[in-house]
């Protein structure tokens, strides 16, 4: 069991979709939202996922395929 903290950024067409709920239903991961900012045009959500590493990896891959941008909580770590 591990925990992973990530930031989801939603494009306009996904803002009204229950992506995080669906992810929790389809994969055996616990989603824990800590901070978010959602407007009509776009949104981001900072959350923690708990579960087995492979399951978290699959869940995040699914979210990416839905059109969600998934980033580490820290933003870009790779610097100039």
């Amino acid at each position, binding site marked *: 069991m591990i925990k992973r903290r990530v930031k989801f950024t939603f494009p306009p067409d996904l803002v009204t979709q229950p992506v995080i709920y669906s992810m929790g239903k389809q994969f055996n991961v616990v989603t824990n939202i800590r901070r978010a900012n959602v407007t009509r045009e776009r949104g981001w959500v900072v959350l923690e996922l708990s579960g087995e590493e492979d399951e978290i990896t699959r869940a995040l891959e699914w979210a990416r395929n839905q059109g969600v941008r998934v980033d580490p909580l820290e933003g870009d770590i790779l610097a*100039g």
Partner: protein
Amino acid sequence: MSRVTGLSCRECGTLFSATPIHVCELCFGPLEVSYDYEVIGAQVSRASIAAGPPSLWRYKALLPVEGDRLVDTHAGWTPLIRAENLGRALGLRDVWVKNDTVNPTFSFKDRPVSIAANKALEFGFDTIACASTGNLAGAVAAAGAKAGLRPVIFIPADLEPSKIGAASVYGPTVVAVDGTYDDVNRLCSEIGDTYSWAFVNINVRPYYSEGSKTLAYEVAEQLGWQTPDRVVVPIASGSLFTKVWKGFNELLKLGLATGPRPKMVAAQAEGCSPVVQAYRARTLNVQPVRPRTIAKSLAIGNPADGYYSLKIIRESGGDAEAVSDAEIIEGIKLLARTEGIFAETAGGVTVATLKKLAEAGRVDPDERIVVYVTGNGLKTLEALAGQLAEPIRIPPSMSAFEAALTRSPQPVGGR
């Protein structure tokens, strides 16, 4: 009493003890070093700073480093130059250049890494790590070598070998990660969570980033403890931008400097300008972008401090502008040909941004403006390939030389 009160969350304000953590346990907001300015005020004066070493450690009382044992790579205390020639070329009367090309590894990154290396020792880490495509790698490798820490550097596997040579000489472990830019970020985030290392832009980031405040302290001290009216600062993650602002504000709060709160101008390359795009759209929401620019040292598509930088631009009455790759090259040449300073592409960005603002009448020609030049041009020579005049080739005769002289370029600067 300690000068550092702890780490405070920039979102919810919760205070944590000063340990190697970077995220608020409650809201996952970023943490920042919090100080007791009464304690600092009692310890520091213009005279005590002036009596300090000619490095960033003259400001130790304003930095989150405890104890007297310091690993000193002699970063900082770089020249602030009155750029009369550049100012004349831009139609501005009081332009200054903060020349941070002359740091030990030739970029401003030596400043934050100096703090990170000392905190790594304080916290008992044996390894200092970063993910970098250039400047940060060199700074971490050098500071690690000096501090007796093991430097570990992550790079994308497709990075040109020349980019990492300037870091490899210090003997770090260099790990080339196969995969995309996003893959490197994700892996490093996971490594940062898993290994007990001082990862400079992860778990020791709150301390690391404080080192950039010294770029504000030095400018004010070098101007006779006066703050400038306006500063032009490049934005990659936005960390430097927010810390320059914090630095000026601290000096004013402590009464060490007098003058205005500087207008903060954010400078980015058009090919990686998420902060400028948000500024133009009048929003604080930064949309991540995929970088496509020659300014590799600023190529951060998802800037951690983008939101905070935008707030500062608003609060300071500042501005934001982006410049094309061609304008960056022209900026590098303009600075070199007016002031004799060879900047890397990030310096081309700040100079070109000031030029653009001056031409558009977005700066007062009489105000005091400081342009930050954060890295040395020898690091990005490839950006100038095919952009400079070829040597004038002549046979070994006086007449050929005299004919060639008539074709040689005239100086841009000078009196």
